[in-house]
Every structure is written in C-alpha cells, then in structure tokens.
C-alpha cells in the first residue's frame, strides 16, 4: 500500500454529520405546509441531482411571520431547508440577504462568531458540510432560494 493520499474521514465525523440535527430535520422536516397568502416565493432546483426547494414566506410588520419550506432530495438539502425555515421565523426581512451571504461564507469554512452563533442557532449543525466539498451545493440550495424569494419580495413591494 502506498501512503494514504486523502485524509481519513472518521466514522464519527460522518456519524456526526448525519446523525443528530441533520437526520432529525431530514426525517421530520419543519414548516412544510403551503401558505395561503405568501408575500414572497421562489423555487430552487439543482438539475444535477434533482434536489428541489420551494420556499414561501408571509410578512407582517417587516418581519417574517410564516414560512413554508418544501424540499425534495438528499438529507443535507432537506435538512438545510428545514433548519433555515426555523431560523427565518420572526426575523426582519432586511436581514435575510445577509443570512444567505453569511451561510455561503460558512460553507467556505468561515466559522460563526459568538454573536452570529446566537442568530444561526441549530443551522450551525450544517457547518460540517464544509468538510465535504462536493456536498456544499446540497446545503446551499435552500439559501440561494432564499435570495430568489427576496427578489420576489422586493419586486412585489416596490414603492
């Protein structure tokens, strides 16, 4: 045998990736009910693997009041959509684009500060995906869909 050329992926690391928060959100996704009167909606689709995220939210007083996140695909994609939907509830809409941007940075390996950790909560469970470069796009789909939903929101609420 020649020397290993790739770092070992410890079984614990994989287990950690899937077992707890991600698997919980994959098996019991939150906020899957459609909204009757959304203020914004978008559909994200990755043709390479068929992953799909349909996102909608309703706004009251400048804050996200209700969220719907319907996803299909792998565990990481679905968990990411579900975790994100939990995070969005009650948040000011002018923060949403920053969330998407900061999540992209998280996937590039830039960890969260103590203050950001408080904001992102359980979403941080996805930070481990950064160790699996080929899977980052699975985690990102929900967040790029959030950007598109914001485009829709702004288009509808032009003054």
């Amino acid at each position, binding site marked *: *045998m*020649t020397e*290993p050329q790739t770092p070992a992926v410890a079984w614990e690391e*994989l*287990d950690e990736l*899937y077992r707890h928060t991600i*698997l919980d959100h994959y098996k019991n996704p939150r906020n899957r009910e459609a909204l009757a009167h959304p203020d914004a909606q978008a559909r994200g689709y990755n*043709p390479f*693997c*068929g992953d799909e995220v349909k996102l909608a939210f309703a706004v009251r007083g400048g804050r996200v009041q209700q969220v719907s996140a319907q996803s299909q695909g792998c565990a990481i994609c679905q968990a990411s959509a579900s975790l994100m939907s939990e995070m969005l509830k009650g948040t000011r809409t002018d923060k949403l684009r920053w969330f998407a941007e900061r999540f992209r940075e998280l996937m590039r390996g830039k960890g969260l500060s103590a203050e950001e950790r408080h904001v992102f909560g359980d979403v941080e469970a996805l930070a481990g995906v950064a160790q699996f470069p080929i899977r980052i796009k699975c985690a990102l789909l929900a967040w790029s869909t959030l950007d598109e939903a914001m485009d829709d929101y702004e288009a509808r609420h032009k003054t």
Partner: protein
Amino acid sequence: MTIPKPANNQKKKFDVHSVRGDFPILRQLVHGKPLVYLDNAATSQKPQAVIDALVRYYSTDNANIHRGVHELSMRATEQYENARGKVKTFLNAADDREIIFVRGTTEAINLVASSFGHKFIKAGDEIIVSNMEHHSNIVPWQILCEQTGAKLRVVPITDTGELMMDEYGKMLGPRTKLVSILHVSNSLGTINPAERIVKLAHDRGVPVLLDGAQSVPHMAVDVRKLGCDFYAFSGHKLFGPTSIGILYGKREWLEQMPPYQGGGDMIKSVTFEKTIYNDLPYKFEAGTPNIAGVIGLGAAIDYVNSVGYENIAAQEHALLEYGTKKLSGIDGLTIIGTAKNKSAVISFTMKQAHPHDIGTILDAEGVAVRTGHHCTQPVMECFHIPATARASFAFYNTKEEVDVLVKSIDKVLEVFG
C-alpha cells in the same frame, strides 16, 4: 520503467490479482481504506503499459506529425499511424481510412451530426434515438434539428430498461434519415440488440450510428458484423488516455461528407481562390491532433488484447451476477435496469437514503461509485427518480470488493435505517 510486452495472441491465464498489479492507481488508500474503484463506466483506470507509452513518447519521440522530414517527426508519425492500424484491426474495419481520431464519443457524434447532418438532413426529415441515450447522443441531434427543421423521434423503453423494438420498427419510415442509438447503456447496463437495430434500419435504407462508449471496454466489437455505418467510442473508458476517441465510418459515407473543421492537415492545398481538401482520414483531422493520446490508445488496445475479451467477459459476468444477488437482498434497495442482456453495471436507489447521501458514506469507506443522473435525465424521468447510485465494474474488480460495497451499504442503513 517497465517495457510493455509486445502484443501477441498467446492468452495468459486470467488471474485477477495479477491483473490488478498492472494498475498502479489501485494500490492506494482512500480515507484510510483500500480504494474500491467501482466507477468504471465514468472512466476506467490505466495500466502501467499505457502510462509507459505516454512517458516514452514524450521522453524520446515527441514531434509534430505528417510534416517534418526529421527523424523525430517520422517516428511520431509512424507510431500515430500504427495506432490507427491497431484500431482498424480492433474494430475489424475494412480500411485504415475509416478510422478518424477525435476527442471522444461526444466529438464523434458531433462530427456526424454536423457533417452528415448538414449534407443529408433537411426540414421534415427524422432522426431516431432512444429514451436511454446519454445526453451526448441527444443534444447534438437537437441542435441539428433546430438548425434544419428535422424532427427527433425517441424509441421508448420498458420498465426493465430494454428498447421497445416493435415501436422502433414502426418508427422507421420514409422520412427517417438516420438512426443513432447506444450499444450499451451507461446508466442501466442494457446491451441493445445492435445487429437487429442495424438490420431493421438497413431494410429501409437508413444508415445507423452506434454509440459504443460503454461496449468496447467489455466486449469485442466487429463493425462489419454489426453492419453499422458509424461507430463511436472513447479511449479513456478503454483503459487509455482521456481526450482521445474514435469515429469509425464506412468509406462511402465519409467520402461524401464535408469536413467538420478547417485547418492544417485537412487540406491538400490552400489558395484564396480555391482550397482542396485532403483525402480520408485527414479530411476530418484538422490541426495537430492528440498524438500522445493516440499512441496511448494503441497501447491500451494491445493491453486489452493481451488480457483477452473472453477473460474480461467471464470476470465481469461473475461480478455482475454476484453483485446483483448480494444487492438484491438488501432491504429497501431497488436495482434500476434489469435487462436480460446486461453489462456489469448496477444502478440502484434506496428507500432510506438519497443517492448523494449513499455516495458520501460509501466514499468514506474508500468505495468510489457514481451518483446522479449519469447524463441520462430522460432515463431517470422514465423511472420517476431524480438520480441513482451506480456501481460499474471492470475486469480488475473482485468479489471481495463487492463484499466491501455491501458492507458499506450496511453503514448507510446504520445511519438512515
């Protein structure tokens, strides 16, 4: 550096462990586990003989071909044309001039779509493909149809992943100008009845292109026995280098077809008044080709011949049978593509986990499989699935590796079950 043995017809007894010794890449750990390479339908690994041929060419003979009068150029030219002869024999073509060097199967199909297509296909004409084609045997024809107003017809497939031959027969008609169908399916493993496909088309005077990307690594191909008008394959799936492939075409067609690209080597003389194109096969080989790739492909063909297709077929058949039996027994696992006549490809889905999650867990065990739609989205649509995980075997794989695959799938169940 080892000097590869000259090709001869003396078949050595097949021993998978000794054959594995010919592939240096297989001797490595991935994530701390021995590599189990089961992604051969995407690309195959390269034997030392091919690697040595590339090193030797660049170390001692590198020069441009067909133009220099100097020694190196003559050596390079001789090896390049010698490889063409090897391909001709390999496919049992009638003539060296029927062998065109291209970048791969994709370019071979694009060449025919562009050159044959623009000469012979007009608005209202029909081109027949099948529902199991790789995107590379769909998109070039869609582009041609867009440009000419021709129409693409699609032969449907059964739920075992076989062509509906009756439908195919009915589709062939006076407007059909070309049939382009894959010989072996990359995502389902189905081996299509190529001779019958050609016979039915020829009864109607329609020429046939066979996409052989997934057949030449596994079975002897005789283009004259098949009767096809065009045959395309890629070197890298045949244990050779990437970016080299073959278009075989019957001379009577190639002679009538206009050049695909213009440039050096494809002309006899150039003036601004009139340029005279070169003869076959050079008419279709504009510019300095992938000389090293051609020489490497020649070495790959010698290597495959030295292993022997009977041995390759026997080993792969055993792996397919054993793998199918083992995987069928896993709870929640469905094999996609269950044709009677199948090459050593096992595509599968699991009710517990998405193919990408399967792929990540298998990778951590050192097992390389492909996950996704395998560039065959219409096949995925047929089976109402977004993707599959696919284990594809070569003759250097072992039953022990199938066991590792099965154990790794147990890990998937451990996480997701």
